[in-house]
Structures are given as C-alpha cells and as structure tokens.
C-alpha cells in the first residue's frame, strides 16, 4: 500500500501470510461444499474439536470470525437488522445476531448471499457448539435450528472455581469428563459421516496443534521486550491461524516460526512496533472494535503501544504431555490447562477468579504495562463481566490504571473513537502518576 510508509505502526511482514490463511479457510469450505463434502460451522473450542474435525477431513468455518469479517467489511449492519426483524433482542451477541441474520438471508435467497464477504459461509452439514466461556456459544447455534436442519453437537469445558478445582480428584475428574465427551463426539461424527476415525492421523494432528501453539506462545513471549516489537493489531491479524486452526497446523507452525525470527531480530535491534517512541505500554481487554481499528493508529501516534491483549485469544502456557499416549486425553488435558493453567498461582495470590481475571495480573506485570484499555461490550457479557473487577485488582495489586471505553464488536454505532480519544490526554497523566507510585513502591516498571 502507498500509505504503508505513513502508517504509525510497523506491521510485521510475517503477519501477512498468517492473516491470509483465513481466506484459505473460507475458500476450502466453499470448495468442499461444492464438491458435496462435509462443512462444519464451529464455535471457537480451544483445540478440543478442531483437531478431530481436521483428522476426519471436515472443512470448517467459524461464525465468530465471520462476525468480525462482516464488521470489517461493513456488511454486518444489514445482518444485524435481519436478526432483529426475526425477534432476537438487540442486546444479544453481535456475532450471533450477524450469524442469525446471515443465515436467515441465506435461506431466503436459497444460496450464499451475493454480497457476503470472503465468498460467504456455505450451508453447514454440522454445527459444533461449545460450552466454553459463554452461554451464547451454544444458545446461538441452537437458535440456528430455526433456519438449518444441520445436526448440532455441544462440547463442554468445565469452569471450576479456583478452590473447587484444587480439591482432591477434581482436576482428573474434569479431564475425564472432557475426554469422554470427545469420545462421544467422535462416534457421533463416524455415524454422521459414515467413516471411521484414523487414530494415527488424529494423534499426529494433535501433536502438530500443540507444536503450532508452542511457537505462537514463544512469539508472544518476545513481546515483553522494550520497545515491544509486536502491536496488538498484528496479534489480532495472526491469531485466527491458531484459534480457528485456519490451515494445517504443520503449515501454520512454520509461519509462526518465521514470525518468531522476524520479531527476534526486531528485539535484538531494539526495533519497536511503533514509528513513534514507545511512551506507554498498554494491554487491551477484550475484543477490539473490528470496524474501527484505525483508532489504534491515532493512539500509536501518541506513543501508545499495545503489547498484550485478551487472555482468551492466547494459547495455553506450555504443557508437557509426551507421556500421555491417548490423543483424546491429550486434548482434554490441553484445553483444560488452557482454562485452569493459572489456577495454582491465582490460589497462592488469594485470587478467586482463576481465568479472565487473574491472568491479567500476570500479563500486566510480565509485560510491564503502564495502563489498560477496557472495552466493555454492550452485546457481550463474557468479554465484559470481569472488566470492573480486573480494573480494581490491577489498581490495588499493581498500581496500574485502566481507561474504560464502551463499545461493541460489530455494531459500529456503539463505539465513539472521538469520545475515547478525548480522554487519552488525561489518561496519560494518570499513567504517569502511577508510574511514579510504582517506582516508589519498588515495582520493576
């Protein structure tokens, strides 16, 4: 792009091929559907179900991602109105309403709507919902039953409390439950597709998935450097490759490895993600306003670098599962670890909310953030419930302030960049103030 030079954020070159994988994902789904092969609409399931579907050659698309896509392409508004016209309350998940509206329209025109971005999501032969993190992610697919006769399967992920998770046998019990559910899912798939699972292949896919995330994790570890070499915008562009397993995990691993190298050399040469000097390091919680990401450029010009973001978008901390032979048990342990990995430390810290809330105490400390931007979403309880508590905890425990900016992920009318930017100057003074207090209190940054 001609404007590339003027961009206040140095985008990573290795980000572009990763971002492109998503296009590939939609393409594969379309091709599969034309060839009469199975296509699944999936909720993000944190690598519980994806490797299984990959191993059984089921093409996948993720309506959650498609919500972000439609927002970015400006196609969402019409779908949202469609969902409202069908009686779904406007306060419900923007991704969900986008998907319900899209599906209603697809049924109405009898094919993929011509205006659909990325070529659209083809008719699914299977819906894979998830009980992880949010009610909407199974209620919404259930509601799709109004339009689709595709069968629906729900994968559960236990969400114990910190104390309860650490009771004798609790962890193992939860893992068994997950593994058992994965087994049931596979036998359901075998019945649905009339094929048997190739267990060796699954075994390999599971390993590759974990290898992929291992590298993705290492990439993000490098962002602790000053100045931070990778801005959240690059994270958001590269994340779908892991979160949606947009391509074969082996291929993706290679791309993350290349990203690691590019960032490593930035770190070695003290090159930051901003053109301007890094005046402030910030974390962004949770989902970004996909329809006005330019907002971050304006903040970048002020020297605001976003160095870490939503816990839920990040891969789990590394976990050694070499001694676990059963691939389903490996998956179960892995996704359970993703959610509860921080629990033991949370417990030591006396924190009672082990995911969503506690991890940010570590993030903000390890990535030395001066401030946090909180983005409560009118239409997403899950990305919003914990924000006030996180704000309070960060202030009390780490003396790090937060700026609250109301908005939405899809409905652009709800996000007001001007109002947000008008508070930036005052917030800089706040960050300066607490930087001083942290120094006095002997914090490391």
């Amino acid at each position: 792009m001609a404007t590339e030079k003027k961009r206040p954020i140095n985008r990573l070159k290795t980000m572009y091929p990763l971002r492109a994988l998503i296009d590939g994902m939609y393409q594969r789904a379309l091709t599969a559907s034309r060839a009469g092969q199975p296509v699944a609409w999936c909720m993000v399931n944190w690598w519980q179900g994806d490797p299984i579907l990959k191993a059984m050659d089921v093409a996948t698309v993720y309506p959650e991602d498609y919500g972000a896509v439609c927002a970015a392409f400006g196609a969402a508004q019409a779908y949202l109105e469609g969902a409202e016209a069908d009686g779904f309350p406007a306060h419900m998940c923007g991704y969900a309403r986008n998907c319900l509206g899209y599906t209603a329209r697809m049924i109405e025109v009898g094919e993929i709507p011509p205006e659909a971005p990325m070529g659209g999501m083809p008719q699914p032969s299977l819906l894979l919902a998830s009980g992880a993190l949010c009610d909407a992610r199974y209620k919404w697919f259930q509601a799709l039953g109004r339009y689709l006769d595709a069968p629906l399967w729900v994968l559960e992920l236990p969400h114990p409390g910190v104390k309860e998770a650490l009771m004798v046998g609790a962890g193992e019990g939860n893992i068994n439950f997950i593994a058992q559910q994965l087994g049931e899912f596979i036998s359901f798939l075998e019945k649905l597709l009339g094929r048997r699972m190739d267990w060796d292949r699954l075994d390999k896919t599971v390993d590759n998935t974990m290898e992929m995330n291992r590298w993705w994790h290492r990439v993000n570890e490098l962002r602790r450097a000053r100045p931070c070499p990778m801005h959240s915008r690059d994270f958001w562009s590269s994340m779908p490759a892991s979160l949606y397993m947009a391509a074969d995990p082996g291929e993706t691993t290679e791309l993350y490895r290349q990203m690691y190298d590019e960032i490593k050399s930035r770190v070695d040469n003290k090159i930051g993600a901003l053109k301007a000097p890094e005046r402030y390091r910030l974390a962004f919680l949770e989902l970004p306003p996909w329809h006005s990401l330019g907002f971050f450029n304006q903040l970048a010009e002020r020297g605001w670098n976003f160095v870490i973001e939503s816990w839920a978008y990040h891969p789990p901390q590394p976990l050694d599962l070499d001694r676990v032979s059963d691939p389903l048990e490996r998956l179960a342990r892995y996704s359970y670890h993703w959610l509860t990995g921080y629990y033991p430390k949370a417990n030591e810290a006396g924190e009672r909310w082990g995911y969503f809330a506690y991890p940010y105490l570590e993030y903000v400390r390890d990535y030395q953030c001066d401030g946090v931007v909180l983005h409560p979403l009118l239409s997403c309880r899950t990305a919003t419930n914990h924000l006030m508590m996180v704000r309070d905890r960060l202030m009390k425990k780490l003396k790090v302030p937060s700026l609250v900016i109301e908005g939405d992920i899809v409905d652009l009318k709800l996000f007001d960049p001007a109002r947000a930017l008008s508070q930036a100057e005052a917030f800089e003074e706040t960050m300066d103030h607490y930087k001083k207090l942290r120094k006095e209190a002997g914090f490391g940054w």
Partner: protein
Amino acid sequence: MNKVKIFTAGIDLGSTMTKVLILDGEGKSRAQVTGATGAEHRRLANKVMAQALGQAGLSLEEIGYIIATGYGRVNVPFADCQVTELTCHARGVSHLFPSARTAIDIGGQDAKGLKIRDGKLVDFVMNDRCAAGTGRFLEVTAETLGLRLEELGELSLKATSKVEIGSTCTIFAQAEMVALLSQGRPLAEILAGLHQAIASRVVKMTRGLKIEADVVFTGGVAQNAAVVQAIKERLGHDVLVPDEPLFTGALGAALLAREMALKCLANGDNIPKKERRLEEASLYEDY
C-alpha cells in the same frame, strides 16, 4: 343499523398535545380540535373536549360513546372506556389506508411501530425509557434555534449534505447541535442531520416487525417533510402520510367507539356508558 344515528368521540391525550375527534351518525368527522400545545395544558383535556362539543354543536350527553387513548388516557373523567394508542392508531391508519401493513407513529415523546394485517393490529414496538428521536427532539431543536417547529423541515430540505449527529439523547443532541453551529456548520446541514437521526432511530426500532409496504407515517412529526423524506430514504421506498397525521389516534378511538356502540345496539344491549364528568384529568399514577 345505519338507521340509528349515533355520535361517538375519540380523545387522544398525547404527551404534548390533546386531540379530540367527533364522528356523526354516518361516521363522518363532525368536529376535530387539538388542545393548546405545551405539557402544562395536557391535563386540561376537558377544555379541548368542550371546544370540540361546541364546534360540533353537541352536548356531552348526546355523544353515544367516548373512548380515551394516548399517554394520558387513564382517569379521563368523561370517557366511557380507554384503549391504548397502539390499537387506536392501527384502527385510524387502516381506515385511512386499507392497504397499510406497517405504521410508524412519532408523537411528542413516544415513537411506535405497528404491524397491521387485515386492518387489525397484530404486533408493535415502542420506545420506553428514553425520549430520543421523538417529537420532543424537534421541539428542543426549535427552542434552541429560536425557530418555529414548522420551519425546521423546510429549512433542512435546503441542505446539500448532512452532518452526523452522534448523540441519541435529546438533550445531548441539542448540545451537539450548539457545538456544530459554533464550528460554523450550516444550519440546514445540522437540521438535516437531526432529522436523519430521528428517522434512523424509528426505522431501526420498527425493523423488529419486519417492515412491509404499504408503510404509513402518522403523528405530529409526520407533519415535518424532512423526517418524511429521511424515512423514505432509510426504507428505500415511499411512505403514505395522512392529510392530518395528528388526528390518526383520535380518529381510531372514535371509530372504535362507533363500532362498540353499533355492536351493542345490534345485540340489543345498551351501551356501557360511564358516569361522565367534564373535569380535569389527572395524568400521573404512582407505582
């Protein structure tokens, strides 16, 4: 049945205007009167009623049946029965436009969308906790600019482009408007923006009913050509507006009253009149 001559009246106690319409024995409008604008006078509905009776040359007793509707319909001491503005508007609309399937009504403080099938109300939406995008929005604008309410529409139609009005809150839109003016934005463009905001809001709300043509636009705000225009643009097709959009609710009430009365007579029952007192209405109810 039409041998029996029976007069009926509908009184629509809106949040900022009171409308009375009296139908004669043939169901033709015999008198229609609006009360003095301004919230202060709303409870004085009895005065408006008296005026209408005067215009019709009738006494209160000569009116066969009276239905009260609108924001202040409760406790009208001279009405025989109260019916919601939703039902009455639907009735009025389908009388004026039998082809109507959707009606949008913007009054002083309320905005509603009506879904009509075979002349009957089947579903509806309305604003509740906030007056954004209602007639009050325009009143405040007029007050702020020292213009007459009627001038707003004409002025804004002169605009060649529109400004975006971000605020949905009536009071804040006013502040935003002031700011825009001081930035030297042309008045017409700002007004166009305001009218746009009203239209977008009411249409977005009405989408919940699956808008189908013919769409009829009623209520005081329907007298504003710029809002009518903005709604057309937003919908992408034409909307029908009655000659006197303000009276749609009162008309509906009077028509319902007439149907009621005739039905009773047909069944040989006597009309369930209440004991009427031409006194002030109390509008407020404590919860």
